[in-house]
């Protein structure tokens, strides 16, 4: 639990704050980018279960959002990020990384392509300086629009049904990572089919004055569908199950790494698939990443592992042998998955160990009766997307 009493005067309230506050049963507020954000309302376990079995909403308004527009916006965005945006049509979301000169990842996030030359970049950390520096020579306007949009992430198996009763026409046809805009009861909505839970889910963006209307309407119409609010702790569980990495947890953003060796490439961070080395245009860090690929010099790949037993293994060392003579790497995020009934983690392991099923050993230190005990157990490489239900991408 994070104590924020001393920070209270400095934190801002998102447009959903009043609605969230009414449901806040504990001292669950934490700071996220200068805003009050719920870590939990009542119990993390119940919010997690609600997400996996019904539907929950999570306030994503504090996300930092940049509008990128202008004659060269498409060229610039394609230069900025590692994905090939020539393959991303308007009204689609692209998950992508962006790197420094050395191909080390500054951050990753989603890029909304609203039009040919109209983008919104969503970031967890401030990036305006980097965007402006990178934009030298391009005819683009970059504007931070974080407070011009309020957003709720509606996630879970019932999320589509709730949007249907809300009256969003064609929501069933909206493809995974698609974006649509619509009007409901005179309110403008932008809905994208993405999220941080790995399940069927949507992000709904409204003008800030419409935020409380959206919350109230969703909860009123969603009641039969078991809609509930969710905090960051439950979100953390779902995102690990979904295999999504988090800046400064699973990798250090290259701009605030203390040592240069802390910086990682997107390939090392396990999102090599989002790096299009073959795209026609150059992008920042491309030559460095091409070199890494050609030389096979990636130090590790962040992979999923399944650990024997039930003891969560955050920050645990992996070994090739039970005796622990050959060290392989380290876990970042780790948890016991109540849904999958599996002990899962992300681990930085050498390329040679990334084939699913590869057996390794892991050293877990855990508290037991006021003592710290050690256990050395087996673990196996797995697809990092531990939870990936077909309904996530299903079209109805």
């Amino acid at each position, binding site marked *: 639990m994070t104590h924020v009493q001393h920070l209270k005067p400095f934190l801002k309230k998102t447009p959903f704050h009043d609605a969230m506050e009414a449901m806040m049963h504990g001292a669950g507020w934490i700071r996220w980018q200068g805003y009050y954000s719920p870590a939990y309302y009542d119990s993390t376990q119940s919010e997690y279960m609600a997400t996996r079995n019904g539907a929950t909403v999570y306030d994503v308004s504090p996300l930092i959002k940049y509008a990128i527009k202008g004659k060269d916006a498409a*060229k610039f965005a394609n*230069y900025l990020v590692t994905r090939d945006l020539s393959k991303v049509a308007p009204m689609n979301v692209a998950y992508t990384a962006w790197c420094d000169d050395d191909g080390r990842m500054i951050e990753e996030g989603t890029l909304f392509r609203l039009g040919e030359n109209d983008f919104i970049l969503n970031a967890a950390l401030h990036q305006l300086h980097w965007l402006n*520096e990178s934009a030298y*020579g391009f005819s683009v306007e970059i504007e931070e629009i974080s407070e011009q949009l309020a957003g709720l992430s509606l996630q879970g198996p019932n999320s589509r049904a709730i949007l249907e009763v809300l009256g969003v026409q064609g929501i069933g046809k909206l493809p995974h990572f698609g974006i649509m805009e619509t009007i409901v009861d005179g309110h403008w909505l932008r809905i994208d089919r993405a999220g941080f839970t790995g399940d069927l889910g949507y992000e709904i963006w409204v003008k800030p004055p419409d935020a409380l209307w959206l919350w109230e309407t969703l909860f009123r119409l969603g009641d039969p569908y078991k809609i509930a609010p969710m905090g960051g702790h439950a979100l953390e569980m779902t995102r690990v199950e979904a295999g999504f990495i988090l800046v400064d947890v699973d990798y250090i953003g290259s701009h605030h790494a203390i040592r240069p060796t802390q910086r990682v490439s997107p390939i090392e961070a396990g999102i090599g698939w989002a790096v299009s080395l073959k795209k026609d245009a*150059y992008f920042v860090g491309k030559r460095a990443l091409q070199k890494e690929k050609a030389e096979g010099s990636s130090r590790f790949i962040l992979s999923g592992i399944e650990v024997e037993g039930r003891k969560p293994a955050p920050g645990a060392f992996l070994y090739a042998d039970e005796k622990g003579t050959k060290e392989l790497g380290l876990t970042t995020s780790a948890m016991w998955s109540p849904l999958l009934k599996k002990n899962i983690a992300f681990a930085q392991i050498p390329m040679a160990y990334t084939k699913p099923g590869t057996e390794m050993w892991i050293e877990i230190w855990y508290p037991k009766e006021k003592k710290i005990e050690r256990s050395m157990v087996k673990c196996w490489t797995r697809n990092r997307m531990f939870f990936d239900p077909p309904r996530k991408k299903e079209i109805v």
Partner: protein
Amino acid sequence: MSAQQYDVIVIGAGHNGLVTASYLAKAGQKVLVLEAREQPGGAAQTREFAKGYRTSAVAHILHALHPKVIGDLGLEGHGLKATENRIGTSAMLPGGARLDITDDKAATQASIARFSPADAQAYHPRMERLVKLAGALGSFLMKTPPSPSPAANDFQTKLALGMFAVQLRLMGKKDMLEMSRILTINVADLANDFFESDIVKGLLGFEATLGVYLGPRSPNTVFNLLYRLASMNVKHGQGGLFLPQGGMGAVVDALVKAAKTAGVTIRTSAPVGHILIEKDVAVGVVLANGEEIRAPIVASSADPQRTLLHLVEPGNLDTEFLRRMRHLRMNGCVAKVHLALDGLPDALKQAQGRMVVAPSTNYVEHAFDCAKYGRVSDNPALEIVIPTLSDPSLAPSGKHVASILCQYAPFKLRTTTQDEARTQVLERTLNVLDQVAPGVRNQVTASEVLTPHDLESKFNLSGGQWHQGEVTLDQVFFLRPAASFQQYKMPLPGLWLCGAGAHPGGNVSGAAGANAAREILNDIRKTTARKGAA
């Protein structure tokens, strides 16, 4: 046009571009040089500024053309007389007093003694010591800077570094320590250490700040002094100051002949619009008129900003690298003034071929103060050359030309407009000139002023910076133009820098061009060997 007609395209027919082209052509490469202007030469050319009056357009004293370049390219066989018209320096004081520094040691001492007997005694030992120290740096002029990561250096580079260490050690403990003491300090302190008279200190302060946006009290200025003094050693330059017959254009004429003899094609009035890039590799150039010319190697002798920020279109280089290029210190601060003179006042006739107006450290510092706040110096420091004294053909019979460097006239002006700056440069230069050579103002029949802004627009020098980037400790050697890109090879494959923006920097020396050519040829050899093996 059929594909791959040329092996190398060199952008810019300045002296470095021509040197690179000649070396490459001599090694069997088919080279095309593209020059934006109507005539080759870049900042080293002779041109008519008023009817019948010609002078070196930008650089006007030859002292640093590297002997190895002269020898390798056989420039003397092509008509270059690099060591003709040796000139001395006169420090001029308002009111007519003068200090002459010539090859005649006794006369020089006598001249200094009129201001300070102590300085007369000190002058030669001190300056010889500085030249000796500068000589140790000079041996790096024709070397490719090492990579900061030791493993990346080849044997030759390691040897050069080792030799430098040995050379430093061979200077003896005293000189070595002196070198480390003075390398980063300011020239005002050095002048106070060495001399007592204002006139000698002022002269030293001027020599150390010429061409950098620094005043005598700015750190780092001794380095600039040593950099200039390196050419006073015949191993690294002409060993003195010379006014080539026919102006700087004569150097370029010889280079053009050498290039053409080697088989280089030179096209003038062919400005490059941008560098042609395919699959993230430079594959040629597109001229401003749209014509496309392909070659696997593009070597640009244009400055780093022009090359990397403008000729390479946005989106082809990395963000931090481009930031470094944008932030290169390139605030040109020297204006060029050309005067057509009816006749020559005695003061200018009797003095040495190079006259300097910098009466004291404070005079130069005050001149810099104006520049620091974005203004043209109220009382600029001047370097005056009368080329017609050694080459009367530059002006109609009996008439003269004055070629003047006016320091400081900053490129970055705060409120002054360009036209105002031009007027101020002329007016203030004439004011100062009239003080040391009374009556000269009345003999001016025509004039031309080239502010740094004009140097940028007319000679494509970004920021009007003569050396394509100030030659200061943070912008030399393995930091020129940027760390990790000091070996002439730019991050964009196929693109090379071969101008003064690369090591070792400015002056009409040809060293950057020669070094770049060597690195390009090494690369071609390596690539061919790799292809052969495969």
